[in-house]
């Protein structure tokens, strides 16, 4: 970011605008990049999910709107925008309209934390992985508010279930983040990614030494997102539509947008931690070869890093959708038992194993 920042400063300097003003104006640009990327990815993701589910069940998926269904989500979004925001006689009007906002805004912040390429590192503080884990939980407050304020028994049960689910799956995530940060000896996501490079390209990734950590993080982020085996809050067969039963129009679109954006962001987080984020699997960047290292090569590398990052996270998203096509839903009591009795001890075990692994292998300890 500072490379782009320096270009802007000397560009505005000859107009006589002081540096401080540029510092204030500059963050608008990354915000717009993140917002545009988020909207684009969510539109594509909703369509990809329906296409993949159709692929698995020998169906065609939406192919009426646009070339082969491309504009389908755009049509859905427009439809949702034109729908009237119906408000039942809610207990608290302010909370009712605040809930979707609380459920969506943290997801934008999460998008900023993940470094999609070594240069697009918008929020780069030293503990960014912990920050991600904490902010990823805030949407649950929006869900609880929605359940409480929409004055409907089904959404109340849905929101309480979602709260219980997120709390019980927070601990395993924390342990996995700690164990990976020990491997990378830094909590900043960018450093974790950079520390995964090694001479034989792919084997440097953390999925090989810490495969158990990957499984735990994958399963608990499924629970965090209310995705398939754990989609209790909006279990359509029991609770009609869970916490967003009473919502319609723009508010429902916000919930819907937030859920899919969160889906992509946490799969990006998994790729960052275990699949070597924006590192290319071949160890070198193609654009480096083409533009034989002048300014163009530098920019080419940034975009290629972002390209690899998106490819890997889409693979994880494909995995999440594949799980959705197969597994039935867990019961809420089994869900808690699974988390406290199996996931938590496993993550502690994995944490100890990683410490030993780090001591023995990385530092060549016992000499």
């Amino acid at each position, binding site marked *: 970011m500072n490379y782009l920042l320096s270009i802007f400063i000397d560009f505005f300097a000859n107009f006589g605008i002081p540096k401080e003003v540029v510092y204030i104006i500059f963050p608008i640009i990354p915000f717009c990049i993140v917002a545009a990327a988020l909207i684009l990815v969510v539109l594509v993701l909703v369509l990809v999910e329906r296409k993949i*589910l159709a692929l*698995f*069940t*020998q*169906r065609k998926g939406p192919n009426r709107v646009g070339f082969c269904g491309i504009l389908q989500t755009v049509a859905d979004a427009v439809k949702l925008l034109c729908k009237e925001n119906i408000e039942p006689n809610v207990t608290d009007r302010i909370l009712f309209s605040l809930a979707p906002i609380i459920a969506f805004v943290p997801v934008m912040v999460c998008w900023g934390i993940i470094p999609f390429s070594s240069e697009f590192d918008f929020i780069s503080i030293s503990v960014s992985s912990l920050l991600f884990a904490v902010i990823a939980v805030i949407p649950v407050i929006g869900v609880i508010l929605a359940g409480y304020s929409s004055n409907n*028994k*089904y959404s109340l*049960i849905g929101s309480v279930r979602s709260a219980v689910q997120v709390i019980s799956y927070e601990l395993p995530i924390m342990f996995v983040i700690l164990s990976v940060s020990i491997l990378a000896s830094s909590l900043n996501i960018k450093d974790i990614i950079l520390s995964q490079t090694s001479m034989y390209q792919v084997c440097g990734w953390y999925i090989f030494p810490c495969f158990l950590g990957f499984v735990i993080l994958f399963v608990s982020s499924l629970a965090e997102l209310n995705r*398939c*085996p754990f*989609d*209790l809050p909006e*279990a*359509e*067969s*029991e609770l*009609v539509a869970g916490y967003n039963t009473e919502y319609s129009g723009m508010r429902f679109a916000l919930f819907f947008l937030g859920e899919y954006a969160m889906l992509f962001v946490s799969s990006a987080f998994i790729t960052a931690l275990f699949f070597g984020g924006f590192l290319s699997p071949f160890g070198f960047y193609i654009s480096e070869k083409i533009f034989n290292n002048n300014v163009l090569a530098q920019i080419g590398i940034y975009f290629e890093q972002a390209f690899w990052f998106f490819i890997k996270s889409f693979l994880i998203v494909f995995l999440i959708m594949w799980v*959705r*096509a*197969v*597994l*039935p*839903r*867990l*019961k*809420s*009591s*089994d869900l808690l038992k699974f988390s406290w009795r199996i996931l938590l001890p496993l993550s502690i075990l994995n944490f100890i194993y990683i410490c030993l692994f780090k001591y023995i292998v990385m530092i060549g300890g016992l000499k």
Partner: protein
Amino acid sequence: MTNLFKTMEINVGPQHPSTHGVLRLILELDGEIIKSCKPVVGYLHRGIEKMAENRSYLQYLPIVDRIDYLGGFFNSYAYCDCIEHLAEIDVPDKAKYIRVLCMELNRIASHLLWLGTFMLDLGASSPLFYCFRDRERILHIFEALTGQRMMYNYFTFGGVRFDIPSDIIDKISVFIEDMPECINDYENIITDNPIFVSRCKSKGILTKKNALQYSITGPNLRASGVNLDFRKSNPYLVYDRLNFDVSSDISGDAFSRYKVRIFELHSSLKIVEQCISFIKNSSDEFLNKSVKPVMLNIDNAEYTSSVESPRGLMSCTVMAGGKNPYRVKWRTGSYYAVQVLPELLINAELADLMAIFGSLDVILPEVDK
């Protein structure tokens, strides 16, 4: 200290996505534990028994397919069997085999729909589409044979309306060859799946005594340890000439009901195979032409026929009174399965409600008649 926590009364309403059809359950919930449940029926009451009183015997025949729209052939056979006994009409052998063939294919189609919706209730979406894809092949066969996908009006007094052309017989034999492989696909996805097992094992246990008290029949009874199948115990049509086996389980929970029905899919396939081999080289005629159904006139007599439908014993009692039936009474399987539901739901969780109710395979038109 009075009980501070007032139980929350929630009603899983008639328009609920997972009650197959329009059943309303008034549940008394304490947190997520169901304390008591009261089924309310009657939202789909079409007065099928009253309809019989001002229609002639032949006019009532197409109405009969609509009682249990997943088992059209079973209802029409039960009704035709009554009339044939009352008016002493004998049925040629080939017609008997064609009837058994259609009924067993219908049983497979009904079990496939049950399996699809049962898995959808539990959350797995893909088995639904595989089951409907296979069920669609059966419906195509029925459409080619009888003219309609679900409301067949194919059985009539004294036999069946058309003969089975040879291309349909080839279609059926092709269907039979690759159906077992599809059933293995379902088993692979579902049977050992730990989430499915944890949700269905020892849930909604129907003891043998309870099942007999509530006169449950069919797969639900066989899953509770009573090996009673009306095709074996009092055989009708040609079931005594066919060899097929009936499975029964002991534990009586949702999982064993699932196992029993999956086994029934396999045994029905074997029956269809034997029927085809007979029909292919039998030159018998398919309808007893000497019957005049339009002017059928039976003096007052009464007969009760019983047939093993996918949801238990379905028996039709016809009290004949001249040109119109005086009174027709239908006994259907799901009518009693809904009655036993509150017994199974006590101290079950809200999420178990779907597993238990889905495993009973209740179809609402049968309950409301």
